[in-house]
C-alpha cells in the first residue's frame, strides 16, 4: 500500500501508510480523556438546570456536602467574577464573561441543561446521589426557542446587557438580536430587474448536534503550588488553556493542558465546559478530579449548531446567467451571543459569480444551549437555501443543473459578496468531475426515485501552528506537534515532513504533546491542520535539511553549497550518505540535530465539493432511502488519500443525518425531548450505502505541497442535494430540515 504513486512527483505524499497512532487505537491501548486514572482521583457530577429560563433565587448545598463520600461541592460563587472580554478561540470569538456563565450559571439559567453546581465524590454514583441533594430555588421565566419568535419586540429578553451590534454600531436598548451583518455587491434591484426568471423561497432548519461518540471529559489536578494540570479531550489544547486560565483568573503559565486522544469533536470540543469545573473541584478537595458527561448532558448542555430561518431569492436570464442574489438569514445563537452567522453570510453565494447580491444576517439569542462550531459552521444551512433555489431556477429555465452551475461558477478573480477575491480555486474542476462521473452518467430508473446534485463551499483558516523535530541516531525523526489528532492528522503531517526529508512516513514518529512541550498551536478546526501544521512540518524539514547539509559539509570539508541533497541522500564529490547514515555519523561527531518551525500563514484556502445523490422515497411513509452517493471534492493535494476520502465520506453521512433525521425536539417549555442517541437518531450502519469519492486536485498555490483543507466542506452539500433529489423523486420542494418521514409524508399528501 505504501508504495510511491506511479508518475507522482512525490515519494510519500499520495501514498497510504498506516497511521502512526493506529496500533494503539485498534488494540484498546490508546488513552482517551476518560482513560486517564490517578491514585486518589475523585469523580464528579454536574447539577443542571431543569428550566429553559429561570432566575436562580438560592442554592443550598449543605446536604450534599455532608453526604458520605463527598469531598467538594462548588457553585458559581466559587468562581471568580468575570468582566466582558472578547477572545478568539480559533473558530469564533467569545465573551469570557458569557463563557463563564455557560460553565456555571450565575444569576439566571438560560437553557435547560445549563450547569449550576458540581460535586466531587469517591465514585460517580455517590456524586450522582449528592447532586440530587443540592436544593436550588428557581423563579421560572418565559422561554423562547424559535429564532423568529426571539426576534420579536415582545419576546422574553435573555440578557439586559446584550445590545445589537450592527456592523460595529451598537443599539441603544438591549435586544435578543446580538449581531447584524449586511453585505452588498452591486445593486440587487437592478440585477433582479434584468432577470427573466426569479425564484424565492423560505427555509427552516432544526438545531442539530455534532454527535461525537465520546462525551466531554476533563480531569484536573490543582497542585498546592498553584500549578494546574488538565487532561482532557479537546480540539485545541492552547485554546483550552486560555479559557481555563481566563475563567479561573490565573496566569496562563500556571495551566498545563494535556490533550488526550479525542473521540470526535467536529467543532464541538473547542469551548470548555468541564475543565474549569474539574479544576475548582480539585482545588477544593485537594485531589485529582475527573468529570465526564452522560449522553443527555452532551445533548442538553453542550453546543449544537443553530436552528435557522432563511429566505433566498435568485434571478437569472433565460440563457442561465445569474443576475442577482438576495439572502435574509436568521440564526439562533443559543443562550449567549456568538455563532456562525458570519460564515453563513459569507458562504451563501460563495460558489457563484454574482454581479449583484445582497445578504442580511441576524444572530439571535434564545433559550437553547449555546451553539458552537459544527463542521463548516453556517455553510450547510446556507447551501440548502441557495442550492435548492438554484435547482428550481434550472428547472424553470430547462437547463441542466450542472450546466447552470458551470455557467456561473466562481473562478480565480471572482469577488465574493463579502469582499475577498478568489485566488486559484477548483470550483469548475469539481463540477466538471461531477459531470464526467459514472454516477452522473448512469441512468436512474424506477418510481419515486430521483437524483440530486448540489455544490458546497468552505474556507480553511491559517491561524498559528508550531512543530519541532529531532533526528535520532538510527535515522528516524521524532516530530513534536500541538495539533490534536481527530482523524489521522499525525499521518498527514508526518508524511509532509518525510517527503521534505526524503525518508519514509514510518521513519517519522509524530507525537501530540501538552502545552508546555510545544509552541503555540491553534485548534484542530477550520480544516487547517494538514494545511497549516503540515506547513510547519515542511519548514521543520527544511530546517533539519539545512543543518544536516552544513554538518555533512564539515565532514567532507567542503562548503554547504557543494553538498547535493536528493531524495534524502547527501553527497559530495563521490562521497554519499543516506539520511540514516548521516544521522548516525552526526550523532557521533557533535551536537544533536533539532529542527523547529512556527507558522501563521496569511492565506486561507478555499475548498469546493459537489455531491450527487440518488434517493427513493416511500410515498406511504415519507421515508427517504439513499440509494447511491458520490462526493467530489478539490483537496488541493491529497496527502493521505484514504483519510481524505474518509473526511468526504464521514462529512457526507453527517449531512445525510442532518438532512433526513436529526433534530432537537423542544416542547413548549423549552425542554428537549429526545436527548439520547437513539431518539436523536444519527445515521446508523443500516441507514446509508457505500459513499463513493472522487478526489480532484487543483493545488493550492499558497502551500508547498498544494494542500487545501478538506475536513469541513463535505457536510455542506448533502441536505441540499437530498432535497433536490426528493423533488426529482416525488415532485415536492422540501424547505425544512430535517426532511423526516412525517414532514415528507405530509408534503406529499398535501401535494396530491
Amino acid at each position, binding site marked *: 500500500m505504501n508504495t510511491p504513486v506511479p508518475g507522482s512527483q512525490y515519494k510519500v505524499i499520495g501514498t497510504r501508510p498506516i497511521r502512526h497512532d*493506529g496500533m494503539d487505537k485498534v*488494540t484498546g491501548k490508546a488513552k482517551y480523556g476518560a482513560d486517564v*486514572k490517578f491514585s486518589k482521583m475523585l469523580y464528579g457530577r454536574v447539577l443542571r438546570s431543569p428550566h429553559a429560563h429561570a432566575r436562580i433565587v438560592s442554592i443550598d448545598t449543605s446536604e450534599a456536602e455532608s453526604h458520605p463520600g463527598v469531598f467538594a461541592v462548588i457553585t458559581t460563587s466559587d468562581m471568580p467574577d468575570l468582566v466582558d472580554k472578547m477572545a478568539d478561540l480559533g473558530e469564533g470569538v467569545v465573551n469570557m464573561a458569557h463563557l463563564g456563565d455557560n460553565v456555571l450559571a450565575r444569576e439566571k439559567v438560560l437553557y435547560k441543561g445549563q450547569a449550576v453546581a458540581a460535586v466531587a465524590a469517591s465514585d460517580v454514583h455517590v456524586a450522582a446521589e449528592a447532586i440530587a441533594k443540592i436544593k436550588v430555588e428557581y423563579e421560572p421565566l418565559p422561554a423562547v426557542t424559535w429564532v423568529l419568535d426571539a426576534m420579536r419586540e415582545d419576546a422574553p429578553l435573555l440578557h439586559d446587557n446584550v445590545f445589537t451590534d450592527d456592523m460595529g454600531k451598537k443599539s441603544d436598548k438591549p435586544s435578543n438580536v446580538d449581531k447584524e451583518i449586511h453585505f452588498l455587491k452591486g445593486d440587487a434591484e437592478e440585477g433582479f430587474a434584468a432577470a427573466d426568471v426569479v425564484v424565492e423561497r423560505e427555509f427552516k432548519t432544526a438545531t442539530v448536534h455534532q454527535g*461525537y*461518540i465520546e462525551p466531554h471529559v476533563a480531569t484536573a489536578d490543582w497542585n498546592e503550588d498553584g500549578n494546574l494540570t488538565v487532561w482532557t479531550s479537546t480540539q485545541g489544547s492552547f485554546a483550552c488553556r486560555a479559557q481555563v486560565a481566563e475563567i479561573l483568573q490565573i496566569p496562563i503559565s500556571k495551566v498545563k493542558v494535556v490533550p488526550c486522544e479525542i473521540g470526535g469533536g467536529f467543532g464541538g470540543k473547542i469551548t470548555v465546559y468541564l475543565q474549569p469545573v474539574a479544576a475548582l473541584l480539585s482545588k477544593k478537595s485537594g485531589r485529582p478530579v475527573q468529570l465526564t458527561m452522560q449522553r443527555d448532558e452532551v445533548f442538553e448542555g453542550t453546543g449544537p449548531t443553530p436552528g435557522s430561518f432563511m429566505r433566498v431569492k435568485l434571478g437569472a436570464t433565460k440563457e442561465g446567467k445569474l443576475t442577482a442574489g438576495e439572502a435574509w438569514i436568521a440564526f439562533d445563537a443559543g443562550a449567549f451571543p456568538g455563532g456562525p452567522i458570519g460564515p453563513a453570510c459569507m458562504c451563501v453565494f460563495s460558489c457563484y459569480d454574482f454581479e449583484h447580491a445582497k445578504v442580511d444576517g441576524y444572530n439571535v439569542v434564545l433559550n437553547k444551549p449555546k451553539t458552537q462550531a459544527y463542521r463548516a459552521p453556517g455553510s450547510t444551512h446556507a447551501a440548502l437555501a441557495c442550492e435548492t433555489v438554484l435547482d428550481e431556477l434550472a428547472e424553470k429555465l430547462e437547463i441542466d443543473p450542472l450546466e447552470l452551475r458551470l455557467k456561473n461558477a466562481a473562478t480565480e478573480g471572482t469577488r465574493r459578496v463579502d469582499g475577498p477575491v478568489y485566488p486559484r480555486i477548483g470550483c469548475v474542476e469539481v463540477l466538471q468531475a461531477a459531470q464526467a462521473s459514472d454516477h452522473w452518467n448512469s441512468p436512474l430508473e424506477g418510481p419515486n426515485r430521483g437524483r440530486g446534485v448540489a455544490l458546497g463551499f468552505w474556507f480553511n483558516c491559517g491561524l498559528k501552528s508550531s512543530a519541532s523535530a529531532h533526528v535520532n541516531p538510527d535515522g528516524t525523526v521524532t516530530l513534536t506537534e500541538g495539533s490534536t489528532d481527530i482523524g489521522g492528522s499525525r499521518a498527514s503531517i508526518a508524511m509532509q515532513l518525510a517527503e521534505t526529508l526524503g525518508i519514509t512516513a514510518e521513519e517519522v514518529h509524530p507525537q501530540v504533546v501538552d502545552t508546555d512541550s510545544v509552541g503555540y498551536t491553534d485548534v484542530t478546526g477550520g480544516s487547517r491542520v494538514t494545511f497549516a501544521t503540515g506547513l510547519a512540518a515542511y519548514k521543520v524539514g527544511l530546517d533539519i535539511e539545512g543543518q544536516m547539509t552544513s554538518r555533512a559539509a564539515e565532514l567532507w570539508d567542503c562548503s554547504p553549497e557543494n553538498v547535493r541533497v536528493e531524495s534524502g541522500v547527501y553527497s559530495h564529490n563521490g562521497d554519499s550518505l543516506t539520511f540514516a547514515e548521516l544521522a548516525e555519523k552526526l550523532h557521533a561527531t557533535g551536537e544533536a540535530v533539532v529542527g523547529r518551525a512556527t507558522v501563521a500563514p496569511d492565506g486561507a484556502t478555499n475548498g469546493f465539493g459537489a455531491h450527487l445523490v440518488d434517493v427513493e422515497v416511500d410515498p406511504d411513509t415519507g421515508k427517504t432511502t439513499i440509494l447511491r452517493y458520490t462526493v467530489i471534492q478539490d483537496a488541493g493535494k491529497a496527502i493521505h488519500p484514504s483519510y481524505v476520502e474518509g473526511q468526504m465520506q464521514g462529512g457526507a453521512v453527517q449531512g445525510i443525518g442532518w438532512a433526513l433525521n436529526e433534530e432537537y425536539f423542544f416542547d413548549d417549555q423549552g425542554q428537549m425531548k429526545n436527548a439520547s442517541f437513539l431518539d436523536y437518531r444519527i445515521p446508523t450502519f443500516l441507514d446509508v450505502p457505500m459513499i463513493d469519492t472522487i478526489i480532484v486536485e487543483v493545488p493550492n498555490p499558497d502551500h508547498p505541497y498544494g494542500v487545501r483543507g478538506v475536513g469541513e466542506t463535505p457536510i455542506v452539500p448533502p441536505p441540499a442535494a437530498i432535497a433536490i433529489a426528493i423533488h426529482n423523486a416525488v415532485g415536492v420542494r422540501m424547505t425544512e430540515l430535517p426532511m423526516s418521514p412525517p414532514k415528507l409524508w405530509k408534503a406529499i399528501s398535501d401535494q396530491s
Partner: protein
Amino acid sequence: MTKKTHVTTTINGEETEFLCEPRQSLLEVLREVLDLTGSKEGCNNGNCGACTVLLDGLPVDSCLVLAVETEGAEITTIEGIAQQGHLHPLQQCFLEGAALQCGICTPGFIVGAKALLDRNPDPTEEEIRFNLAGNLCRCTGYDKIVRSIQEAADRLQSAT
C-alpha cells in the same frame, strides 16, 4: 457505600476476580476496577455500542450488563482480540483500510465484527450493516468499516 459482591470470571482467557457493587455495570468494572479501558463509554444506555464485549461468545453492550451477572462467565474485551503479539486480521484490516478516524468506536466495532465473523465467515454488505447497526460511528460514514470487515473475512477464509 453499598456492600460489595465477589465475582469470579474469565476475562481474555485469564481467571479474574473482582469486587463490585450491585449497581455497577460490567463496563464500569472493566474500566474502573480492572483498568481495562479499551471498552469505551459513549452513551451508557446501549445506544452506541462503543462498549461492546463478548459475553460467553455473544456481543453485548457492557454498559447494559451488571457486573454481578458475570459470575462464571467468559468475557472477551478489545484487549483480548490480538493473540500472542499478533493482531487479529480485523485489526490489521482496520489499520490498512483507514476504517477509523477518531477511533473511539473502533474497539466496539472490532469486537462486534469478530462476533459476526465467528458465526458468519463470509457476510454480505447487508449482513455486516444489519449485524453492526447497534455500533455507531460518527466519523467515517461506515464505508471503510464495511470494506475492512470484508477484507478481514477474505483473509480469514483464505487462511483456513
